[in-house]
């Protein structure tokens, strides 16, 4: 172990420090996440129209208010599903991918992006849009030098809620595809 404290860590002083206005961590792209969750499988896009009734049921099952977007669903020939969704908290926005096997079991969850922000309305779709679809090589240079942050544990409850609505989506609309309305 080699530890070199800064002087004020030794003194135990809470200096103001660097304001963490926007911290964007981009882990993997949707494409990379697909390969991680389903190595050697190919997927094609299988968007569905989310009816108001389905949207409402997903809302009440998960307590997530912002609507699910039906255009981020992929399917493989063997009946596996790959779904991308995002959850938005007061100060954070997290997009994530869920893999579901042909038996309907979750095979894995992968975080794509984690954006933490203070002083911006994360809930604003326009603001969030700038992060969508970027990958780890994109030059979003917002506090990128700040990587290793310790501190109280951030709960992943939002993701747990998000996965709940993805599972419900599978149960109600994907499992029996004949019932789902598909855009041409």
């Amino acid at each position: 172990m080699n530890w070199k404290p800064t002087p004020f860590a030794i003194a135990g002083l809470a200096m103001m420090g660097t304001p963490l206005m926007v911290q964007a961590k981009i882990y993997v792209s949707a494409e990379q996440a697909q390969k991680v969750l389903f190595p050697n499988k190919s997927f094609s896009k299988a968007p569905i129209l989310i009816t108001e009734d389905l949207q409402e049921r997903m809302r009440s099952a998960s307590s997530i208010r912002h609507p699910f977007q039906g255009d981020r669903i992929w399917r493989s020939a063997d009946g596996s599903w790959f779904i991308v969704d995002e959850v938005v908290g007061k100060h954070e926005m997290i997009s994530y991918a869920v893999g579901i096997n042909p038996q309907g079991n979750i095979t894995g969850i992968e975080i794509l992006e984690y954006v933490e922000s203070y002083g911006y309305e994360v809930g604003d779709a326009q603001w969030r849009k700038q992060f969508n679809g970027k990958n780890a090589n994109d030059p979003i240079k917002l506090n990128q030098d700040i990587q290793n942050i310790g501190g109280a544990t951030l709960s992943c409850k939002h993701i747990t809620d998000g996965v709940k609505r993805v599972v419900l989506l599978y149960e109600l609309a994907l499992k029996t595809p004949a019932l789902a309305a598909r855009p041409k």
Partner: protein
Amino acid sequence: MRRCKPFLGTYVEISIQQENKNETISLAFSAIEKVQNLMSFHDQYSELSIINREAHLRAIAIDPWTSKIIRIAQDIHQHSGGLFNCGIGHRLVKAKLLPGNLDISHHDFGGIEDLQFVGQDCIISSRPLCLDLGGIAKGFAVDMAVNALKLNGIHSGCVNAGGDMRIFGNKPQTIHIRNPKVPSNVIEIGSLMNGAIATSGLYFFNRNQQQSYIINPLTSKDSDIHHVFSESFSIIANECVYADALTKVLILSKQENHSCFKRYQAQAIRIGV
């Protein structure tokens, strides 16, 4: 490359210098998942839940990883004078900070010291238990993930489970912690190479207006059970399991020179407000 998955109730991030090592990183995440499956209080089929239900009735064979964490927890319990004790699950259930899978009303629960090994990986308890490994399992999981990475040829990287992190390899990394006064600000506290750090603060917790999840195992006064504080406390140690567990000793003792830190070659940092 860098990946992140939700485990242990938080976000676990693994970053390594090398690219194209997805399978190796997946192995490290599997180690984290194994710890979650063995030691989750929420999962009634975990080994921990079986211990809580049955260890006072019969001897139970457990996974070597569960043995290891129990031995470490007992050692820290002994050398912290009881300030660190996993036998506080019932207090967290009562405060609705943990789910009530277990009937807690009729028992006089013992602590981690009541578990005895009757074999290398076999335990029995002299009293009913309501153990919660929430104060040590994240750090242990981080260590197991680091071991998996190292065993598979990764020389340098970082595993961070919601602020409990370990850095390995020969590249010093700058460590920031959140300012307890203004959690949207981060303070650079130093640089770390081949070591672990864990930090406790209540600044995210208070916004949910729940009771503090830091339990004082030595008090019998109801008003002192949930320990409230405004500072942030960090421990730096060789392994993350010790960093994680010893933050509780630091929070409750408020002694940066507590004798047990020396035993585990740990250093304490307290940031006031």
